[in-house]
C-alpha cells in the first residue's frame, strides 16, 4: 500500500499516487503532494487552479475540459504546465484530490 | 517385412495423409468466424479476392515485401518441390517419354526429363539446406525453433537425398519396374516392391513423411489457404441486408465470469449470460 503522511496521519494512495478516499483531502495534503509533483512553492495561482478544479468536480463529478480550465482560470496551457509540471490531468487533479482522469488521455 | 513396407504401409500412409488433412481442415472450418477479419485494402469483388489470395499464395508476395533472401529460398524450395512432384507423376507414367508429345525424339525427351528432374532436385536440396542454415543463423529464429522444426527439414532432406542418389550415373534404377509397382498400388492390385534398397528407403521415407505431414506444421499447405481466405473476406455491409445473419454466438458459455451490466451489482455473481 502507498501512503502519504500529512501531519502524522497516513493517507492511502492508489498505485498512481492519487488519494483513495476523496474526503481525506485537506490543504495540508496539497502541501505534501506539492513536493512529489515538482511544485516548489504553492502560490495563489496554484490555489486558483486547485479550487477551480475542486468546485467543478463538486458540481459535475468530473474534471473540467482542459480548455475550459484554462479559459475560466485565465491561464494558458503553458502556464498551467509551469504551475504543475506533471500537467493538468495528472498533476493538478492529484493535488486537487480528484480521481485520476482515465481513458484516452 | 518387405510385404508390409511394399504392399500395406503405403496404403496406411496415404490413408493417414488424406484423412489427417481432411480432419485438420474440417476442425478449422467447424469453428466459426464470428467477426470479419478483413485486412485492408480489401479486395472489392469475389474475383479480386481469389486473384489476391492466389497471388499471395503463388508468389509469396508478403515475404517479398519483408525478407527478400527468405523469399528467394522459400519460393525456390516450394516451386522446385512442386516441379519434383509433378515430375514424378509425369516422368514415371510416361517413363520419361512425356516430351515426345511435343515433338521431341524419345532420346531427347529422356534427356530433358532427367535434366529437369536433376535441376529441380538440386534446387530443392540447396534451398532446404539454405532454410536449415537460416534457422540456425538468425538469432530470433534459432531461439524460436523446436526440434520438430529441424526434424521437418531433415525428413524432407532425407527424402530428397535418397531420391537424388538414384539419379547418380553409377546407380541403376529400373523405371519400368517401379512404374509397374506403383501402378499396382494405385489400381489396388499391389505387387511386391522392387528389391532396390535405395528405392525402398526413398519410398519408405516418403510414406513416413505422409503420415507425419497432417500432424505437423507442414499443414501450412492448407492453413495458409484457410487463413488467407479469412483475412481477405469482404467487410460487413450496413444496414445489414435482409437474410444475413452472422454467427453471433461468441465465447459466452457455461460458467460465464463476466456479468452483463443488467445483472451487475445485484451480488449474484453466478448469472450466466447464456448467449
Amino acid at each position, binding site marked *: 500500500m502507498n501512503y502519504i503522511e500529512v501531519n502524522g496521519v497516513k493517507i492511502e494512495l492508489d498505485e498512481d499516487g492519487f488519494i483513495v478516499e476523496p474526503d481525506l483531502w485537506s490543504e495540508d495534503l496539497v502541501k505534501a503532494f506539492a513536493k512529489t509533483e515538482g511544485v516548489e512553492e504553492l502560490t495563489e495561482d496554484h490555489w486558483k487552479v486547485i479550487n477551480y478544479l475542486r468546485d467543478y468536480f463538486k458540481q459535475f463529478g468530473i474534471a473540467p475540459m482542459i480548455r475550459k480550465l484554462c479559459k475560466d482560470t485565465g491561464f494558458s496551457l503553458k502556464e498551467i504546465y509551469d504551475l504543475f509540471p506533471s500537467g493538468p490531468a495528472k498533476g493538478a487533479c492529484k493535488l486537487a484530490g480528484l480521481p485520476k482522469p482515465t481513458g484516452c488521455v | 517385412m518387405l510385404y508390409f513396407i511394399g504392399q500395406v504401409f503405403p496404403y496406411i500412409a496415404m490413408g493417414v495423409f488424406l484423412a489427417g488433412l481432411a480432419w485438420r481442415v474440417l476442425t478449422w472450418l467447424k469453428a466459426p468466424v464470428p467477426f470479419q477479419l478483413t485486412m485492408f485494402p480489401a479486395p472489392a469483388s469475389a474475383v479480386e479476392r481469389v486473384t489476391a489470395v492466389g497471388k499471395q499464395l503463388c508468389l509469396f508476395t508478403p515475404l517479398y515485401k519483408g525478407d527478400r533472401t527468405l523469399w528467394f529460398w522459400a519460393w525456390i524450395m516450394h516451386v522446385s518441390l512442386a516441379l519434383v512432384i509433378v515430375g514424378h507423376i509425369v516422368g514415371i507414367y510416361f517413363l520419361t517419354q512425356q516430351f515426345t508429345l511435343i515433338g521431341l525424339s524419345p532420346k531427347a525427351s529422356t534427356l530433358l526429363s532427367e535434366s529437369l528432374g536433376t535441376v529441380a532436385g538440386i534446387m530443392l536440396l540447396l534451398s532446404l539446406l539454405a532454410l536449415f542454415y537460416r534457422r540456425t543463423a538468425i538469432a530470433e529464429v534459432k531461439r524460436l525453433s523446436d526440434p520438430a522444426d529441424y*526434424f521437418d527439414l531433415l525428413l524432407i532432406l532425407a527424402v530428397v537425398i535418397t531420391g537424388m542418389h538414384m539419379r547418380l550415373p553409377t546407380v541403376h534404377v529400373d523405371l519400368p519396374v517401379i512404374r509397374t509397382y506403383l501402378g499396382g498400388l494405385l489400381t489396388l492390385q499391389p505387387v511386391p516392391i522392387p528389391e532396390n534398397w535405395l528405392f525402398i528407403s526413398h519410398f519408405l521415407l516418403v510414406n513416413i513423411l505422409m503420415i507425419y505431414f497432417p500432424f505437423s506444421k507442414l499443414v501450412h499447405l492448407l492453413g495458409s489457404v484457410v487463413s488467407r481466405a479469412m483475412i481477405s473476406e469482404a467487410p460487413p455491409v450496413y444496414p445489414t441486408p435482409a437474410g444475413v445473419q452472422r454467427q453471433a454466438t461468441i465465447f459466452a458459455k457455461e460458467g460465464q465470469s463476466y456479468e452483463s451490466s443488467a445483472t451487475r451489482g445485484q451480488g449474484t455473481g453466478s448469472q450466466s449470460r447464456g448467449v
Partner: protein
Amino acid sequence: MKVPLHVAKEQEVKAAGFKPTPETEIKEKFLAKLDDVRSSMRSIMVMLETCTKCGNCAQQCHSYLGTNDYNNFPAARAELMRRVYKRYFTTAGKLLGRFYGAEEFDSELISKWMTYFYQCNECRRCAQFCPFGIDTAEVTIAARHIMSELGIMPKFMAGIAVNMEKSGNNMGIPKPAIVDCAEFMEDEMRDETGLDIKIPIDKPNSDVLYVPSSADFFTNVDTMIGAAKMFHHLGVNWTISSKILEAANFGLLFNMNVMREHNQRLKEAAREVGASLVVQGECGHGWRAARMYTEGASGPVPFKIMHVLEYAAENLSKLPLRKLPLRVTLHDPCNYARAGGVIEQPRQIIRACVEEFVEMTPNREENFCCGGGSGILMDEMMEIRMQLGKKKAEQVKALGSLDYFAVPCSICKAQLPHVMKHYGMGSLSMGGVMDLVGKAMVFDK
C-alpha cells in the same frame, strides 16, 4: 504477479463485473477458456497451427524493434499461447511434447501473458508481412479475453469498464458535465464564427448519431468542434448521445463480452434517437469495433455506419475550406488503415485543408503504430510506451520541419505527444484531421 502494469485488485475486478478466480482453479479454468476461445474463433485455431516459424515478422514489428525483447517478436509472442495450446489441444503436442514445442501450463505463464500481450498494440502489421496472414492481434485479443475471464486484467481496463457502465463513456463524464462541455464548445464556436453552431445532445428524431471519443470532451476539443462545424454547415439533423459518448470500445482490447455490450449500447442509442446513420468519431480501434464487429456481436444492424473522415471526404466539395499555410504529415492509425479501410479519405481531406501534405515512410497499410494502440496508455508503462513509439518517432523525424502532425485517433493523440517529447520533437503541434477541417472552414458572417 510481477508485471510492468498495475493489475486490477479483487475489488476492482468485481466492480468491473468480473469474478476473480481462486489460485487453485486457475489452471483448470484457463484451459477451459482456451478451449472455448479456440472453438469460437477459427482464426485462433488456424493461426496457431499454421505458423512455420520463419521469423519474417521480427523485423516488421515496432514493438520488437523498439523494446528488443524476444517475447515481443510476433511469432514468439504467439508462442506464449501456441506452446500450451499444442500441449492440450493438438495430437502431436500431446504425443511429442517438447520435441514439438508443446509445454505444460505453469503459474508463470499468466505473468508472461500479462507482460507481453500488453506490449502488443494489436496493430496487425505482422499479418501484412506473414506469408500466411497470421494476425498476432487475434492471438492478443484472445489472450487478453481469456485472462479477463479469469478475473485478471490491468487496473486501467477495469477502471474504464466501470466508467463505461456507469456513464456511457470511458472517462466517466456524467450527463450534466456533457451538457456543460457542449455549451462551452458552442460558446467557443460563437466567439470564433459569430454563428450559433449547436452540439445537440440526445435530440430525438435525429438522422445522424455522432459518436465522438470521450477524450474530445476533455483534451481533444478541436476534433469535436471540427465535426460540429461540418454538420452545421451541411445542415445535418444530428445529435450526440449521452448514452454512448464514446467511440472507443475497450472491450475489444480486453474482453469480448464487454465489447459486445458496448456494441449493443450503440445499437440502442441509435434506435433511441432514431438515427439511420451512425458516424464514428476519431478513434481507431473503436472504428474497427463498430465497423467490423457490430453485426457479429449483436446481430443485424438496422443503420448505416460511417467514419467521420469518410463522411467528411464524401462531402468535401460542399465545405467552405480555405487552405491553411501548414506543412502537415499524417499518421495512419492501424485500425483505420489495416483494420478499417479508411486510408485515402484522411489524405483527401488534409490536401483540401492545408498547403503542403507530406507522406511519411512507410505509410497507409504498412504504417507503424504509435505505440499506444490497444489501450497501452497506462502511466506506469511510460518507459515501455516510449520504446513502442520509437519507430514512429524515427518516421516523423525523417520528414524534417513540420507545422502539424495529423493523428486522427484518440489513443494516438494521447500517446504521441509523449513520444514526440521523448524523442526531442516536443514542440510539434498535433491533433486530429477534423481539427484541420474545423480550422480551414470559413463561414460568411
